[in-house]
């Protein structure tokens, strides 16, 4: 519903986008924000778009993303829209197998029906690529997928996002942060079983994907982004430029370049509104190079 409103205001959104290209197709917009291309394209090895094969190194093992082009044998060409919806909402494949949460269905479950529909339609419009999927490299005890049903009982709450306040911008921000943009998948620390620690929501982690340190983005003044204004957050989402003059690097720069910069300005402002309203967490998740430095309160 909120998406309808956003798309309905197309003229205003385009005008407010600070000159950035915003996809006219709603499905492409969802696709961009969800960051599908970031994980499902092996850019490092010049892989074809969405043909999978990107290596994701995590503390639990190494995952290889699958081919999600509409190719019938190696991609998702034989899937129905209902299969696709089930994958995003329930984390279950058409063959009934549970997905590992390296595929962030724990966030995508919050996407509304319309967004899933338009995303599906957009993916179907892209060129098919025949490329076989690679097997994950996991310890033997994690290779038994039925165990994931137990994991889901413990750490997964399926269901689309439901507005919790009358503040439209805040709701929109919450929808994007918790659903499509799946911010918490990287910015929230995980417990030993890989579940997100809701007591430290967006508080950063030293054990992020691909071994990177992921910063605390709660409004904590010392360890988070409490000193950032909402305009600073908006600028960061659109350009990667931090108020201290530093720039986003690595995975976040990728997320900005391929995803977040495509958001309408109103959506970036909605994210800022939501993030600034969260409880501050004094979790000192910082890069080794930032620890103990005079300016450390300015970093993350």
């Amino acid at each position, binding site marked *: 519903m909120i998406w309808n409103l956003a798309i309905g205001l197309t003229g205003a959104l385009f005008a407010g986008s600070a000159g950035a290209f915003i996809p006219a197709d709603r499905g492409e917009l969802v696709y961009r924000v969800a960051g599908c291309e970031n994980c499902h394209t092996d850019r490092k090895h010049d892989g074809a778009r969405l043909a999978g094969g990107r290596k994701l190194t995590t503390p639990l093992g190494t995952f290889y993303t699958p081919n999600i082009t509409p190719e019938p044998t190696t991609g998702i060409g034989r899937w129905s829209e209902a299969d696709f919806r089930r994958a995003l909402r329930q984390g279950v494949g058409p063959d009934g197998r549970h997905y590992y949460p390296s595929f962030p269905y724990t966030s995508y479950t919050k996407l509304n029906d319309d967004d899933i529909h338009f995303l599906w339609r957009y993916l179907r419009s892209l060129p098919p690529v025949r490329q076989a999927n690679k097997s994950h490299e996991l310890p033997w005890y994690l290779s038994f997928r039925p165990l994931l049903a137990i994991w889901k009982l413990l750490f997964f709450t399926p269901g689309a996002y439901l507005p919790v306040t009358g503040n439209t911008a805040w709701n929109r921000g919450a929808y994007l942060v918790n659903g499509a943009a799946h911010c918490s998948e990287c910015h929230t620390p995980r417990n030993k079983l890989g579940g997100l620690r809701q007591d430290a929501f967006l508080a950063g982690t030293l054990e992020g994907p691909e071994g990177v*340190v992921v910063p605390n983005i709660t409004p904590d003044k010392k360890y988070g982004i409490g000193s950032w204004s909402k305009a600073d957050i908006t600028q960061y989402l659109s*350009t990667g430029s*931090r108020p201290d*003059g530093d*720039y986003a690097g*690595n995975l976040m720069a990728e997320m900005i370049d391929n995803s977040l910069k495509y958001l309408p300005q109103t959506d970036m402002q909605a994210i800022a509104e939501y993030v600034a309203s969260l409880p501050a967490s004094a979790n000192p998740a910082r*890069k080794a*190079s930032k620890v103990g430095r005079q300016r450390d309160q300015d970093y993350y």
Partner: protein
Amino acid sequence: MNRTHWPPIMAALGMVSAVAYAVDTDEIVKYRRNLMDANGGLMGACNAVLQNKVSDQTRLAGFAQALGTLNRNIATQFPPGSASPDSDALPDVWTRRAEFERRAKDAESKASVFGKTPSAAAFADLSAACKGCHKDFRK
């Protein structure tokens, strides 16, 4: 000198070299971090002025010139063997050296343009060069 003295002497020399090397690596990492901090501070200040968050237009030219100087020959601050767990530089700095040097030259050129003409457009070009390099070569 007795031949039996050579092994311990060589071992001692090796240890001294290793320590000297470690110190050099630490120093270069600290030095380039300071350069990048200086870069960041100036970029943040220029951004604030160019976006009219503060009214300090008179200093903009000086900040821009300093950025032009700071960004000369950046790649030389990343010599072979200067990777360190304390450094934010990714191994790609050394394994994809030609590309890294090309990007560093690009940043240098954009910083030089901004140094001579401190406009919002030149700043945006320099920002894009900074982010592009951080995306592929920094943790």
